[in-house]
């Protein structure tokens, strides 16, 4: 989309968003973007690791439950989910909480079972 094709009522920022959405329609691998220190663009899907395996979702702010379901870890209440930030620690994702996958540094997830026993 060039300057001549810009609709007359579209601001520069809107135009930039339109271009981004037009071009970046593939799957973003979050670990790759985290290594580059860049925030992933808006994409059709987002690929990330939960523990060792890679999974995809097709929204940029999925819930904790959506991420666990994508990883086949159900029921979600049987698992904890933590977000690993590049160069940082693990942030606990609470039930119902949404994760912004386009946040810079989002690298991967760690899911751990909650069935350890006492005694």
């Amino acid at each position: 989309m060039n300057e001549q094709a810009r609709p007359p009522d579209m601001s520069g920022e809107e135009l930039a968003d339109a271009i981004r959405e037009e071009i970046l329609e593939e799957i973003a691998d979050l670990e790759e973007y985290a290594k580059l220190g860049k925030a992933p663009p808006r994409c059709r899907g987002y690929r990330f690791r939960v523990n060792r395996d890679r999974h995809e979702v097709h929204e940029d702010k999925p819930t904790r439950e959506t991420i666990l379901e994508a990883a086949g870890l159900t029921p979600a209440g049987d698992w904890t989910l933590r977000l690993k930030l590049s160069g940082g620690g693990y942030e606990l994702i609470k039930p119902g909480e949404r994760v912004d996958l386009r946040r810079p540094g989002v690298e991967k997830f760690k899911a751990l079972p909650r069935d350890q026993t006492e005694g």
Partner: protein
Amino acid sequence: MRRQFELPEEDRAFLDAYGCPWETVVDGSPWVLLHGFATQDAGYNHDAVTAAIRIETGYPKAALDMVYFYPALARKDGRAIGATEATQSLDGKVFQRWSRHYTAANPWVVGQHNLGTHVLMVEDWLMREFEKCPAA
């Protein structure tokens, strides 16, 4: 901070990022001590303690197990915490043992579990205490 034995690189990286001052101490067994470890819930008698994890022979192929706290944790509401009666002398102090174990359904998996995942589970054990039995 003492470093009386070496940990695998991924464990050192985890501990450095975790934010608690940490030590490796040999006292009968090799132990990792995390100082200022947050107890996750205001219902405990301490906001932070020292958490000790015994590094089992054969680790990281061998599973880690349980956690030990100093000073001992209790619930402010007076309710007992299950399977915490045993104690462990360590580094000149008496630690409270939280007897918590991996299950057959979700056992320790070599290459997937390590000191870092164990520490995250310890956080969850502290939180679950008040989920299963909310503060009175």
